[in-house]
């Protein structure tokens, strides 16, 4: 492998932290979902890197499965955002806080 495995892991961790920060800091639902996407891409990067490191194809196969799962998750999530926006006229997370206890 041309790139040392440590570098791949480092980049992936940076990506993951960026994605997590995005989900925690941003209040727009769309931005939260983008943050989650970045976290999942970081995971895919680790898997591809590890697959090359171990000279196996398993990790890359899992990335394909991960893409499929991510796609279905995004489909459901966007439908939900659309539904909420249609219903309550807002796509900001803080507007949904009517349950307390």
């Amino acid at each position, binding site marked *: 492998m041309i790139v040392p*495995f440590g570098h791949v*892991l480092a980049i*992936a961790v940076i990506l*993951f932290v960026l*994605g*997590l920060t995005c*989900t925690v800091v941003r209040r727009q*639902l769309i931005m*939260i*979902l983008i943050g*989650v996407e970045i*976290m*999942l891409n*970081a*995971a*895919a*990067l*680790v*898997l591809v*890197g*590890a697959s090359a*490191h*171990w000279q*196996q194809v*398993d*990790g890359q196969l*899992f990335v394909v*499965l*991960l893409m499929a*799962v991510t796609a*279905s*998750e995004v489909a*459901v*999530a966007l439908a*939900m955002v659309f*539904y*909420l926006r249609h*219903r*309550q006229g807002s796509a900001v*997370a803080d507007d*949904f806080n*009517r*349950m307390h*206890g």
Partner: protein
Amino acid sequence: MNAMELIALTPVLILTLGATTLLMVGAWHKQVIPLVTGGIIVALAAAGAALLIQPPVAEIAGMFGSGPYARFFTLFWALSAALVLALSIRYIHEQTIPAGEYTSLVLFAATGMALLSSATSLVGIFLGLEAFTLSFYILIAINRHCDFSAEAGLKYLVMGAVATGFMAFGIGLLYACSGSFHLPEALHGLQTGGALRPWGLLGWGMLLVAIGFKISLVPFHLWTPDVYQGAPTPVVSFLATGSKGAVAAALIGLFASGPSGWGDMTSLLWILAVLTMLVGALCALMQTHIKRLLAYSSVVHMGTLLVGLLCQSRDGLTAGVFYVVVYCIASLGSFALIASLADHGDEPGALADWRGLGYRYPVRGGVLTVLLLSLAGMPPTAGFMAKFAIFHAAIQADLLSLALLGILASLISFAFYLKVILTLFTPNEAVAERHSGTGLEHTVLAICVTGVLLFGVVPGLLFDLIGRILP
């Protein structure tokens, strides 16, 4: 994948194909009763297949086991799905929830649970978990007549999506450390990982965060009360039992699957268990809404389950499986009871609504009392045996302080269960009229109460079975 593996996969195939068929049929024929009855038949057929078909292979595609442990939980989740569907019929009819979608989503969720409980590889765990999480995203928000339903759906979606990110990254790191997705090898690689071992431990920690979100361990439990309060009650009965139970079953399978490579993780799990039990119990004391109260009660239960896992002994794991089964029966029964009192979406939520209901509906008041006593852990119910087995195993494994803290949390729990029971039997002239419940709903309640009392009086039945199926 060959014919042998397909035979071993029959119960899951029945669930998936049945769910797909019902989804298609539901697009044209929208009558509630035939569709949901079809769903119940599919679930029962899957349960029958899991019971009767002897799998010719031990493992399917290197991802899912087909041993007795997997078959037991496939059977259990399929039966739970059947019970949930049985108590949903009136609810979805009154709330005009599309029956085809609802039924097929419940069956898909059961498929995911069955796969998760039988997973023998990290890929299997991920796919099983996602299969039912995606179904629940929709199921929680499916009630268009209730604003809380949409809000609960959103909360579960955001938390679930973040948990998915943690789980995928954790699995990636575990694979990077060990070079295998298959659990025994992955855990072995964690022990001998060399320079990559810290990454493997980080990965295991992230996996734990994701699992913590799903079974709502403190501090990842914040979504639980809101989602339970907002979601349709039959859905909550499945969410509280199946989704938590399946993750717990996978966790038990993980602990049973080989030499523990997580010696360094025990202290972390210890802290999580103690925090979950104590914070959950104290928060539950302050709740005035029955569904939020049961949500915190489920938090406490999952903490207690962790105690069983921490024993790292066969006794502890056996007690853990027993605990999961008993918790699921009692919890499903409690939510089924709330659903049976609901009339056109108007259900007793605040504790004040429950005042005197025990006199107005004595049978169901008695049923709720028995189920709550089981959740609290009072003899002669199964809950007592479950807690006793867990704490006994903990003391045997030299975890005296953990056992004592667990018993303290159980004592605090008594207070809030007792509060509900006392409210139920407080004289009240102005008690509101509730729905008298359909025959199917009463059947579901009867099954749950029978289970709780049967396993309380003769726990040996279940303990012997678990002793034989545990890998």
